[in-house]
């Protein structure tokens, strides 16, 4: 392991998103604040309670998770894809580093960005409602492993993508629908069959509910089931991203 390169790449990735903080940190915060206003305040006043907690409180963990998932994915995918487009990927290819340094640094930085933006969303939420912290352990588990999984998915997408359109497929056509249908704004207990059963096939449901259990102590699925889904997703993405980088998929032609 080239520790100097690992540290350098990690710091570089942190500085990259810090340099464009308006786009990477402030922009998601504005979007999430609007969600709070529309779903939490406007609709929440009519919906009152869901799963035994006030609706505005119910949406907080889901919005935090949605922000973390999106930001961790975007951090790795945009950075790696831009390197491919502007040619600076050559700097990585000729460096004495392997897949492990790239994975650890890129995913580590993506997790940092996700934790920062997720925490800021929590701060914004405090302007609208208070919320408990039911289980610190579960909250930390989902706060670390879910962004790591989506950071890895961002790497896979960037390696696969050949144009910006390719890169937009996942966040727009997969992530956004799965997040909205993954119980960010509602409990799947409200859904009739077969939609309830179909919803249980959505991995985002487990991620959102895992964090919701950590904060509020309520969830549509057990935290253990959520943890299993997250760990399996993490291992799958780690293997895929690791193999692609090891083989130099679409990099070392």
């Amino acid at each position, binding site marked *: 392991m080239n520790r100097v390169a690992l540290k350098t790449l990690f710091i570089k990735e942190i500085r990259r998103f810090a340099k464009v903080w308006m786009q990477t940190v402030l922009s998601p915060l504005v979007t999430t604040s609007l969600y709070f206003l529309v779903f939490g305040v406007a609709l929440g006043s009519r919906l009152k309670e869901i799963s035994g907690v006030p609706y505005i409180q119910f949406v907080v963990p889901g919005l935090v998770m949605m922000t973390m998932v999106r930001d961790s994915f975007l951090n790795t995918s945009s950075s790696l894809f831009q390197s491919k487009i502007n*040619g600076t990927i*050559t700097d990585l290819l000729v460096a004495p580093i392997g897949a492990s340094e790239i994975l650890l640094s890129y995913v580590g930085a993506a997790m940092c960005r996700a934790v920062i933006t997720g925490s800021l969303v929590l701060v914004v939420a405090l302007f609208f409602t208070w919320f408990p912290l039911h289980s610190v352990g579960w909250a930390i588990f989902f706060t670390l492993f879910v962004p790591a999984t989506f950071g890895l998915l961002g790497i896979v997408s960037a390696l696969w993508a050949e144009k910006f359109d390719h890169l937009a497929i996942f966040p727009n056509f997969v992530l956004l629908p799965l997040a909205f249908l993954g119980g960010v704004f509602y409990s799947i207990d409200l859904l009739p069959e077969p939609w309830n059963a179909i919803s249980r096939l959505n991995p985002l449901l487990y991620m959102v509910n895992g964090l919701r259990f950590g904060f509020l102590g309520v969830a549509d699925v057990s935290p253990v089931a959520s943890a299993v889904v997250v760990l399996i997703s993490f291992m799958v993405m780690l293997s895929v991203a690791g193999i692609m980088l090891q083989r130099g998929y679409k990099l070392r032609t």
Partner: protein
Amino acid sequence: MKPSVLRCSHVTKRYGDFTALEDLSLEVYEGEIFALLGPNGAGKSTLIHCITGVSKQSEGTIEVLGFDTLRDFRTTRRLVGLVPQEINYDPFFTPMENLMINMGLMGVEPDRERAEDLLRTFALEDKRDAYTRTLSGGMKRRLLIAKALVHQPRLLFLDEPTAGVDVELRRELWQEVEDLRAAGTTIVLTTHYIEEAERLADRIGVIHNGELLLVEGRESLLERHDGRSLEDIFVELIRRADGRHAA
């Protein structure tokens, strides 16, 4: 004879049905400037990419100072520097930051003094904190060379370093190449400019259609051809090879 720094043995590179390099063997010796000449698409960059890690050969072995570039890649890549043909730069970082980052990537603790030295050597000290995108084409090219030198490589590849640059900058770059050789760096340079090879190279290799047609010392090559210019020799070699292929 000086020790070998680079040894390519029977290197073949295929892209699907297309063979970019065909059973190519080559040695480069310590302290020399080796110029690799060839028309567009001859395989010059492909060979450099296989040696430096940008690409992988399909067959054959490549050794840098006795280390295999695939098996011992962490060692060989510390020994090698690459100035790519295409200008590339990270728009997020300044020249100073780019050099510091490249040092770290090459496994060297980032050293501000070394970065300052490189910026001075390549006349970029005034631009140390400027956005890289605001640099002129010549400055960007000089930054690329500085980046390739951050870890003091034993073997430096310059892939068409003077392509598209004006006469003045070309002469500056030639001087920098000569200074690097004087400092002990072995240099492999690819070029379209015969004049460049004639001025700088100790030995010359001609590559065409992925085959190495000739490797010879510059002086003996010119002597052997009775004072004909290197350009004439090059053109004749390529024509002969094309005729052989056509036949």
